[in-house]
């Protein structure tokens, strides 16, 4: 898992792709791996990877995303460097794709340069989101995203949660739905994500690898520290 040169995260709108992408990039970078993140999100106007530029720069992670006056634009901007990074690079590339099949369309536009053999594409799924209440709808979303993203989804990341109201039961219940979805699609559940608080306990009850997530994307009233007053929707 996460050992291919390119890791693409797709999924429905609000499934947690950005949070997982940021955590993954920080984790790999902390282990000394050269990491580049690409923000392909043209769907949501707030809470995007690009808002975390400060945090990523501090961690030595290169960010490919609109900058300057376009940082907070609601325009479908794809920075051109993404194409060259996909073609050839000695850095690990993590791509945060915008939500739903609409967001995956951007990925499809890069299909001529995506190195399929060196790429893993994971669908992040939260069964507590209204658009994916059950395995059937999640499987349908995988098919839609694959069709427009022109890239096979090679695994699922189970990310069922209710933010601060998440319990172990909610995570496990979501994982069971993810397993059923994986069966329908004949692909593996590559990991189950959970907050750092629940991760250890989760490891004792499931076989899948556990991704312990530190909450990075959050509104200003929840920020525990470094509370800058800028237009920042992440801890920076």
């Amino acid at each position, binding site marked *: 898992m996460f050992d291919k040169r390119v890791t693409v995260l797709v999924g429905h*709108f*609000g499934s947690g792709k950005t949070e997982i992408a940021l955590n993954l990039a920080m984790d790999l970078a902390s282990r000394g791996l050269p990491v580049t993140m690409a923000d392909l999100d043209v769907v*949501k*106007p*707030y*809470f995007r990877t690009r808002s975390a530029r400060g945090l990523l720069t501090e961690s030595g992670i290169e960010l490919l995303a609109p900058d300057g006056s376009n940082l*907070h*634009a*609601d325009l479908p901007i794809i920075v051109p460097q993404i194409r060259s990074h996909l073609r050839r690079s000695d850095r690990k590339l993590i791509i945060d794709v915008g939500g739903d099949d609409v967001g995956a369309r951007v990925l499809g536009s890069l299909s001529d340069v995506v190195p399929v053999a060196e790429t893993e594409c994971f669908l992040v799924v*939260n069964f*507590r*989101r*209204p658009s994916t209440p059950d395995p059937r709808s999640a499987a349908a979303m995988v098919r839609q995203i694959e069709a427009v993203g022109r890239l096979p989804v090679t695994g699922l990341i189970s990310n069922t*949660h*209710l*933010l*601060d*109201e998440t319990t172990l039961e909610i995570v496990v219940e979501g994982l069971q739905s993810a397993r059923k979805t994986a069966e329908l699609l004949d692909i593996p559940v590559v990991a189950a994500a959970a907050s750092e608080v629940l991760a250890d306990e989760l490891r004792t009850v499931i076989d899948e690898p556990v991704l312990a997530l530190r909450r990075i994307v959050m*509104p*200003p*009233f*929840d*920020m525990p520290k470094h*509370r*800058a*007053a*800028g*237009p*920042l929707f992440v801890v920076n």
Partner: protein
Amino acid sequence: MTKKLMKGSEAIGEAAVQAGCHLFFGYPITPQNEIPEYMSMRLPQVGGTFVQAESEVAASNMLYGAAGSGERVMTSSSSPGISLMAEAISYLAGAELPVVIVNIMRGGPGLGGILPSQSDYFQATKGTAHGDFRLLVLAPWSVQEAANLVQDAFDLADYYRNPVLILGDGLIGQMMEPVEFADSREPIKVLPPKTWAATGHNGSKPRSVINSLFLDPEELERHNFHLKEKYDRMERDEVRYEAHGLDTDYDVLIVAYGTVARVCLTALEELAEEGVKVAMVRPVSLFPYPSAAVREAAAGAKAVLVVELSMGQMIEDVRLAVGRSKPIHFLNRVGGMLISPDAVIDKIRAIEDGSSEEVRHA
């Protein structure tokens, strides 16, 4: 029902559908596009109709026509889009049509930016458009409250035959939180049948006419007094607010609404741990404004602090409530910049040590 993790925009849309709103007319603008997007997906599932109009002007006039049939109808937009709807909103108020309008505010003036703001406070509460009219304005601070207020808004709109505005800053539309909808819900008002609706004459009842044109001055004057009587009833019966920390002694009273009040609550709780006593009144209804609650709470404080994502628009209502009895201090950020809990804490400390300047009186 099972708790879901929803964006504010999705919760607003779902709340409307569950309140029986099956008609939506709108036009896209960031940061509230997820409301029309959700409605375009959801309304066909319940036999409803979603129309993306050619402009906000068109959408708001479609709202007028559809509301005239007595159906529950909604539109949503963000700041500049609400300005475009202003004329129709005055017509809706004049013709006494119950509609729900959602404004997810972005920074202004002009096109401004797409980040959160509260700079449409005056527009919402005092000067939406021409003529003597009022909107009933409700301002949520969480996704769950946004859903609840949207459902209440439909009842209040029907009860008063008046447009109700849900006023949220950009965060309310975009952030995600757990939300639960009740399996069934009773209206918060006793709602009479809509005998005024234009649903067909059939030769058996007086014609229903939906109109805001009154060329006879005596009739228009009577109409204005009738409308005023409704606004007076709103001021008497529909004040909503939430109080924090009023039950113990406090030096500073914070007045803030929307997500800014949550930032203030974080600050208030941290200060309480240090023994610094602060209280807060959070207006939920912005019209009618909880003037009495602010006045009574301010009586127990040495100073009042207004916190906003605008240039001090709410200070006027706070000053009307407290008069010159207490010094008023002000903390704000605008343009999409947000207020951090630390900034609120620093400001409170400055008020306590005398280094904060109070807002000057006119």
